[in-house]
């Protein structure tokens, strides 16, 4: 008789099948605002559940999915797969023209590389703000070159492959020289005429190389 009661109690508290426990853990982790410990899981699940085991199955199930079961400290949570983080952003891209200071700095680096900040400032006649250099570095249009063998061993800046790609140049040496700039009307102190000869056109000129090499001679 007493055995009957015991059996009845046992069956009353029999844990749900592990597949069902997995569903429970899944639902709890999904709905929880905070990561949940195994202990908390078991406190919320029916008596006799083995949340740790259910988690093993659940974790395997979500392996490689868009959402993963991850352990954070002692707790468990579901998180979007790291490689899909880009989906959590709604991107709006705005294209802006580079500031005049940045263009000038970039031009000096392109024409005079490798060039130190002090040299840039000397050529521009004004100091170069940190923001300008940072912006160009961030855009990956310039990078640090080797240090100059002058006192203080200042860092230099050079243009990058990205820069060349963007401007359709094979080499920084392909940049038109001073003479070409002048013949293109770019060196005159008046607004350039509407029909600007393209840089490629200038390139065809044989004299290009002279100006260029002169520029790049250290």
């Amino acid at each position, binding site marked *: 008789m007493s055995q009957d009661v015991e059996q009845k109690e046992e069956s009353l508290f029999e844990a749900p099948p592990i597949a069902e426990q997995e569903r429970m853990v899944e639902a709890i982790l999904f*709905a929880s605002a*905070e990561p949940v410990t195994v202990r908390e899981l078991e406190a919320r699940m029916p008596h006799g559940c083995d949340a740790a085991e259910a988690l093993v199955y659940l974790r395997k199930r979500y392996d490689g999915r868009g959402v993963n079961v991850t352990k954070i400290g002692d707790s468990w*949570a579901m998180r979007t797969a790291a490689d899909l983080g880009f989906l959590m952003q709604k991107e709006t891209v705005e294209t*802006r023209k*580079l500031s005049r200071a940045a263009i000038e700095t*970039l031009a000096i680096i392109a024409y005079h590389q490798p060039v130190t900040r002090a040299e840039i400032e000397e*050529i521009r006649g004004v100091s170069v703000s940190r923001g300008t250099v940072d912006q160009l570095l961030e855009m990956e249009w310039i990078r640090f070159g080797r240090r100059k063998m002058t006192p203080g061993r200042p860092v230099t800046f050079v243009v990058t492959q990205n820069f060349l790609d963007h401007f359709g140049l094979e080499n920084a040496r392909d940049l038109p020289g001073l003479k070409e*700039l002048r013949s293109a009307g770019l060196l005159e102190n008046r607004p350039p005429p509407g029909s600007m000869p393209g840089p490629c056109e200038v390139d065809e000129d044989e004299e290009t190389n002279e100006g260029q090499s002169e520029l790049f001679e250290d």
Partner: protein
Amino acid sequence: MADDIFEEDRVSVAERMAAEALIVDVDGFEGPLDLLLTLSRTQKVDLRKISVLQLAHQYLAFVEKAKALRLELAADYLVMAAWLAFLKSRLLLPPDPTEEGPSGEELAAHLAFQLERLQAMRDCAARLMARDQLGRDFFARGQVETVERVKSVTYTATLLDLMQGYARIRTRDDFRPFILDRESVFTMEQALERMRGLIGYAGEWTEIVTYLPEGWDNDPVRRRSATAATFAASLELVKEGHLDIRQGESFGPIQLRKRGA
């Protein structure tokens, strides 16, 4: 008379109690239609088979009782009572062919429809609220990952921008930096230098105008500048203790003399 019919309809004590309760609780009803629906339940039939005539009796009896109990009934209850009395007469009397408007049967059918529809909506409301509900039976994601609104700004420049930028810098070299045109300016430094050279000879009181540099007294602009500079230089020399300065009266001539002379 109406009372009699009412009593006839009532069979059990429980129903009579219920009817009493209805009256006491008149404020609990949401209008005459709600009351009619409640009364109709005492007929214990499908709403489609309800006897509207009987319902009219029930309602009118209810209103009578309420009046007897001096209960304040809202106007729309009384309007409904009047209308039901009218409906009752239409239903009881043989149709008068000369009479205009809808027949008693049509009116009764519509009232039955209204009651059935209201009951249906109440059932729907109950079924709706019995459904699994978000936040009670099923749940949304607890740990919402906010969608970042990333406003990325791409900066761009063309090769032309680059060349123009470079040209702009190089073109600058062709111009000397802007400096003030100083041709007509006699600086205090110049005046000081000149005065220091001359002061040794100023043993007597001498008018300041005689110290003006040569060639600076014809052009008024130049003379003004030279005068001001010379005066300022004189004051500086007084301060240094090399010179005495005096002016006899306002706007009178200013005279200088070497100190200690």
